[in-house]
């Protein structure tokens, strides 16, 4: 087990990596010249980010003299002898206006290529965000898809009778509390633009769906009808929420505008129909229903219509989540009393259980589809866990200050 805790991190969530990817690309991220002036090590954050993806192995680099920077002439043979397939060099310089400039370059030591780099101007408190941007650049150049290091996650921490809805960087650092309550908060979901969260709060002694603007903390009630209001899901264009309401009896799926107007009923059954999720193309709504006698996943046209059953194996399949490309369906399945994450390939109908824990809940895809964040329980404590979509690579995020962490939601790419 590798314990990654950067010396400067004040992360409330600590990350533990408990599995490893098959092919990890060895990369040397050399300490950026002058980075001490920022108060934290940009190169260490970049390296930790890349390792957390499960696709990279960071190499130890001893102190070098002279210390190489992005402007140095590269001795590719020397870096090959250190077993590095890729190399990141950079430097930090103070500017006259009190800000800093970070420059870096990425090199492919196998092809002996300069893969270019970027320069950023930043204030001291933007060091972490800048490191995540650099990691995203490296990831995209070497893997060929977008990195998620600059994205954010939302989750709920329960300590005693206090519930906090928190937002943190994808590495668990820099957490901020968006909402604190003495009543439960569940089911946070990010708006497609990443500016708002919809969630269910029990502060009115029953479930009510709110939309919460993160920038100004302004909250609006999206669904507070007679009975229970729960399970919000954003349409991909952000114009609608699908919700589960009991206002007409039972638990049925409706759509409503985020401001609470324009209510429309989509399902009509005597069953529990809940946990709606739009497909990324907006054509379908996947949901959980026990209309067939046990909870299974169904889908219907987004405007409503005859549902089709999607899951058939097992007697308890719930919490459907579509991958960002719409090709995979993650959900929770019960196997002999254990709740685990299953992945269904919607193309070839192959199902794979990708976790081996007992009490998994609330899966959430990273916006590039590589990882699935979920809630689980270890040692009687609620923690977050992340598993790669192929099931090979796992990591765990737990609250350092105690308490149960649950209800994770991975936010979208932010431009």
């Amino acid at each position, binding site marked *: 087990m590798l314990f990654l805790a950067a010396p400067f991190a004040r992360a409330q969530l600590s990350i533990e990596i408990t599995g490893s990817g098959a092919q990890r690309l060895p990369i040397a991220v050399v300490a950026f010249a002058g980075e001490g002036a920022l108060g934290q090590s940009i190169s260490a954050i970049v390296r930790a980010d890349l390792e957390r993806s499960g696709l990279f192995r960071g190499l130890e680099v001893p102190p070098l003299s002279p210390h190489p920077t992005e402007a140095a002439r590269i001795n590719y043979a020397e870096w090959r002898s250190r077993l590095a397939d890729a190399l990141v060099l950079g430097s930090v310089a103070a500017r006259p206006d009190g800000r800093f400039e970070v420059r870096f370059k990425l090199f492919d030591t196998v092809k002996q290529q300069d893969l270019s780099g970027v320069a950023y101007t930043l204030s001291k408190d933007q060091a972490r965000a800048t490191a995540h941007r650099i990691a995203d650049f490296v990831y995209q150049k070497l893997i060929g898809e977008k990195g998620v290091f600059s994205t954010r996650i939302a989750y709920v921490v329960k300590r005693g009778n206090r519930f906090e809805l928190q937002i943190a960087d994808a590495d668990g650092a820099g957490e901020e509390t968006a909402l604190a309550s003495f009543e*439960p908060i*569940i*089911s946070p979901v990010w708006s497609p633009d990443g500016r708002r969260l919809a969630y*269910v709060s*029990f502060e009115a*002694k*029953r*479930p009510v769906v709110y939309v919460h603007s993160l920038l100004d903390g302004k909250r609006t009630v999206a669904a507070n009808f*007679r*009975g*229970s209001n*729960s*399970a919000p899901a954003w349409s991909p264009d952000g114009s609608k929420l699908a919700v*589960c309401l*009991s206002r007409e*009896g*039972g*638990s049925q799926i409706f759509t409503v505008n985020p401001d609470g107007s324009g209510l429309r009923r989509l399902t009509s059954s005597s069953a*529990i*129909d*809940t*946990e709606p999720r739009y497909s990324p193309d907006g054509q379908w709504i996947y949901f*959980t229903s*026990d209309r067939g006698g046990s*909870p299974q996943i169904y889908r219907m046209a987004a405007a409503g219509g005859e549902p089709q059953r999607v899951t058939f194996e097992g007697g*308890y399949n*719930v*919490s459907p989540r579509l991958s960002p490309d719409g090709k995979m369906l993650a959900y*929770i399945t*019960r196997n002999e009393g254990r*709740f685990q994450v299953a992945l269904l390939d919607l193309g070839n109908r192959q199902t794979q259980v990708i976790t081996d824990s007992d009490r998994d*809940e*609330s899966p959430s895809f990273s916006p590039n589809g590589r990882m699935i964040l979920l809630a689980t329980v270890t040692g*009687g404590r609620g923690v977050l866990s992340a598993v790669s979509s192929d099931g090979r690579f796992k990591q765990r995020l737990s609250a350092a200050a105690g308490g149960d962490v649950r*209800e994770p939601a991975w936010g979208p790419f932010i431009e």
Partner: protein
Amino acid sequence: MRQTAIAALSASLLFLAACATTSDTPAPVDTPGGKPPGQVQTQPIKPVDVTGGPSGTALSALKDPKNILSKRSIFYDYDKFDVRDEYRALVEAHAKYLRENPSARMLIQGNTDERGSREYNVGLGQRRSDGVKRMMTLLGARDNQVESVSLGEEKPQADGHSEAAWSKNRRSDILYSGEY
């Protein structure tokens, strides 16, 4: 808005009444061997209750541990939603109370144990509270007197991860207005 106005009005009436009482109170009179002091007249105050909740004797019946109306929880078997026979008298007593107190309002909160999806459990809890509500209305309570909601697995009565705790958490709780 109207409730606020009424509350403000009754508060000012109370204030005026209090002032009147104070100013009408005579100075202490020394009456050694003399006549008793005159009676102080006070205007009776008619209480106005806009909380919508029961008051007076009715309220105490709901709280009196000897009264079945103080029993507020119905427990369920695993994955079951039907009210067991042992709770029949409890439901009938509350339905009778609602019939006899048309202004009384009831909230039924359905709950589940911790196993499974939180949102699906909201659905299961709703099925429990809907079942109790249906019984209440069949027994003569009016639909607008009873609201059924679900707290899913979020408000366990017992902590722990065994059947001993779970059996206490699979329940419907009955609350009257003023209690939630």
